[in-house]
């Protein structure tokens, strides 16, 4: 895939390059896999693109806000933030192979929401980890949800997942939630109990199972679980970089309780 992009969209200092036509009027779901606690979203989304045989469609870049990183796949240079599509299942996915610098969090989050609005996405689905200090003692991590519109809340109430009623969310997903709510866009954030500083493929599998419950799109997570140890070895460097980025974003807030009136 060595060709020039068909078009470029610019938002807030962020450029989104489309190399191929979306091929569908408007994708139903945009799944976000930005590196976060336990790399839950990043691992889940990458696995989804492989498992569903999704096609590369574009990439996100910023000469002002991103680090000068190019990732090479099969000899071809890409931005570490890539867009994939599965036309049959109406899914667009953002795969991230590098953590976001703190200065890029707000512009990137706002750009994602603007792009989702531009291409007519029905639901933005953010997959993420929520660090819990006793993760080592938890066999089956729980998934929680946050939704930004009454319609999205209704969908989530029909699932077996629990709503996150009180707490903090820190990082790009936090901004995407606020922006989506303000614009009346449907954003569902799935937060799965995870390690903060170790890659957590089990939590990523739980996130994908939660995604399947919402969308009725089956994703077989058996290979993700079978190859968990190998995936953890390969994801160590990304986890190390993400840990530094999360510390700068004050990720520790997520383990605190907000002020409450009871």
């Amino acid at each position, binding site marked *: 895939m060595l060709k020039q992009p068909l078009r470029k969209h610019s938002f807030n200092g962020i450029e989104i390059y489309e190399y191929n036509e979306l091929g569908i009027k408007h994708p139903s779901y945009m799944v976000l896999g930005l590196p976060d606690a336990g790399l839950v979203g990043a691992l889940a989304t990458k696995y989804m693109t492989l498992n569903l045989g999704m096609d590369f469609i574009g990439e996100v870049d910023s000469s002002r806000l991103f680090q000068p990183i190019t990732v090479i796949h099969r000899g071809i240079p890409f931005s570490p933030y890539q867009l994939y599509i599965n036309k049959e299942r109406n899914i667009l996915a953002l795969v991230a192979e590098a953590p976001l610098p703190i200065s890029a969090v707000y512009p990137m989050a706002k750009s994602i929401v603007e792009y989702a609005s531009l291409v007519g996405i029905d639901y933005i689905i953010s997959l993420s980890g929520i660090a819990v*200090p006793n993760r*080592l003692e938890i066999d089956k991590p729980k998934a929680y949800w946050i939704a930004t519109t009454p319609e999205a809340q209704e969908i989530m109430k029909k699932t077996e997942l629990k709503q996150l009623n009180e707490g903090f969310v820190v990082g790009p997903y936090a901004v995407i939630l606020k922006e989506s709510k303000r614009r009346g866009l449907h954003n569902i954030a799935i937060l799965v109990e995870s*390690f*903060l*500083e*170790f*890659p957590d493929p089990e939590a990523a599998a739980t996130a994908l199972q939660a995604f399947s419950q919402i969308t009725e799109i089956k994703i077989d997570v058996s290979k993700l679980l079978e190859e*968990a*140890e*190998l995936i*953890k*070895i390969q994801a*160590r*460097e990304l*986890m*190390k970089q993400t840990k*530094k980025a999360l510390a700068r974003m004050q990720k520790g807030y997520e383990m605190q309780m907000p002020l409450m009136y009871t």
Partner: protein
Amino acid sequence: MEEFFERFRREIRRIIREFEEELEELRPMWDVNGALEPLISITKRPDKYIVLVDLPYADLNALSIEVKGRRVVIECSLSNELRFERWSAYGHTKFNRYHTEFLLPEDIDPTNIIIEKDDERKVVRIIVPRKIL
């Protein structure tokens, strides 16, 4: 004058610490001799530090943890040699063990360290008491 030298020493220590942190960021977590560096997480509690070491694919029966003062040295073989046809820009690579060394905080009491292995998750927990001041 003494105050000036103390400030000077503190500043030098800060610069050295920052320099070491920058070097740390540049260093890869593997080497060409087959060693992988594990991820480590240290949590501070009122009476102890909890150190978690993530050792996927390790044979925890071959785990060695040596604590000398504040310095911890961890060695562990992998269950099998891991071969990668493509590893970064390096091409064909194989790994057979974990190795890491790190310093614990200054207020540890190294006399009653507890080591627990979770063989299923391949995570080792090192509980290090803190000195009661």
